[in-house]
């Protein structure tokens, strides 16, 4: 009954703790739970990065078939994380500024920061520079859904907006109102 790592169909290596049945139960001992919360958070963020998933919902623990099944369930040991536990983990991530409730004022869905807004800001500015798009006006849509896949592809608009806000503080970007939405102009950093 050795607990070992396991590779998922999507090519992600699950840590050995994921093979332990009690990992899927919220622990009553606070020290133990603090330790396991850290493990879960690391797992969630690493997986999100691997699959480029930006959103985690309580619903992902309620209904199978979503993007998170490889993490939230372990068919080999017949265990799954229950919705209240996932909700606690989401709250923990928000408290550590590793996620935000999005949309705001609800607690069923979070936007994950597997890259912090500051890091996204740098990625964004580097991409704009490398593709020769400084000083031109780009719509948010052009950034999150570019014709050629980029590091910014599929980035949720709220996260993109945060990254731009970070850039604007150092005068590397400016939000511009465009015809039917928002646009941005990047400047040399």
């Amino acid at each position, binding site marked *: 009954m050795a607990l070992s790592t396991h590779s998922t169909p999507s090519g992600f290596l699950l840590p050995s703790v994921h093979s332990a049945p009690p990992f899927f139960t919220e622990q009553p001992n606070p020290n133990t739970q603090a330790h*396991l919360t850290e493990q879960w958070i690391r797992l969630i963020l690493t997986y999100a990065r691997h699959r480029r998933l930006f959103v985690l919902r309580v619903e992902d623990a309620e209904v199978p078939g979503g993007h998170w099944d490889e993490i939230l369930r372990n068919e080999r040991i017949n265990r799954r994380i229950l919705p209240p536990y996932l909700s606690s983990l989401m709250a923990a991530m928000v408290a550590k500024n590793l996620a935000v409730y999005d949309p705001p004022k609800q607690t069923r869905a979070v936007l994950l920061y597997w890259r912090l807004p500051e890091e996204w800001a740098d990625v964004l500015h580097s991409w704009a520079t490398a593709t020769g798009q400084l000083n031109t006006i780009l719509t948010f849509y052009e950034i999150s859904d570019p014709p050629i896949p980029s590091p910014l592809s599929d980035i949720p608009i709220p996260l993109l907006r945060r990254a731009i806000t970070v850039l604007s503080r150092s005068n590397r970007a400016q939000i511009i109102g465009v015809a039917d939405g928002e646009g941005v102009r990047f400047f040399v950093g």
Partner: protein
Amino acid sequence: MHRGVGLAAFDREQVSQRFAELSSELSKTQVDHLQSQLTQFRTALSHFATTHRDSIRSDPAFRHAFQKMCLSIGVDPLAGPRKGGWWAEMLGMGDWQYELGVQIVDVCVSTRERNGGVIEMGELVCMVSKLRNGEDASGVITEEDVIRSIKTLQPLGAGYEVLDVGGGKKMVRSVVKELDADQAVVLAEAQVEGGWIVEAILENRRGWTRDRARAALENMLLRDGLCWLDSQDEHYGRAYWVPSAMHWDE
């Protein structure tokens, strides 16, 4: 404790003094004879130590035999640089022993959050060996080496102790909180099932009452952090898992 053990006890001044006391009983020739024998012995030991230092460090069987020999002649090579210093200097065994002690502490501290401060001996030996692989590729660490090293950690007062939980299994405790007898039984039973334990096992195999079983498990869970809860157990609903009795591959 280890005062005067090892050849440092036989330093020249003490020897001369003791012989002076004896001289009224023994003739001078006998005294000279003794002194030259001691010098010969010291030289031979010194030669032995430098010749075999590497073998002692790298070969556990040789090391075991060497330790037994030392014990039988009343010499303690474990004594650190300050006490019984001669051996330590010749062999560097004191340093080796302390280095192993530090690595044991390292593994115990880093796994403490997971297992509550109790680790199975096999797992400890395995993890310490992995730590060492980088530096001492030729050396093999045995359970005996670890047990001996843990003895040197006792003065730390941090509770490092080897526990025998029956069934040929040993655990190493690294927290001050002592395991009570019931917890030791729980650990032993958990070993059998690869870490899994429920009240029913304690009732059926050990004849405990339900209350006693529940109290032991709940204390280990809530008070001591020595086990984890699984609320999705197919048969029992609520089961306990003891991380120190589980086999972790990493």
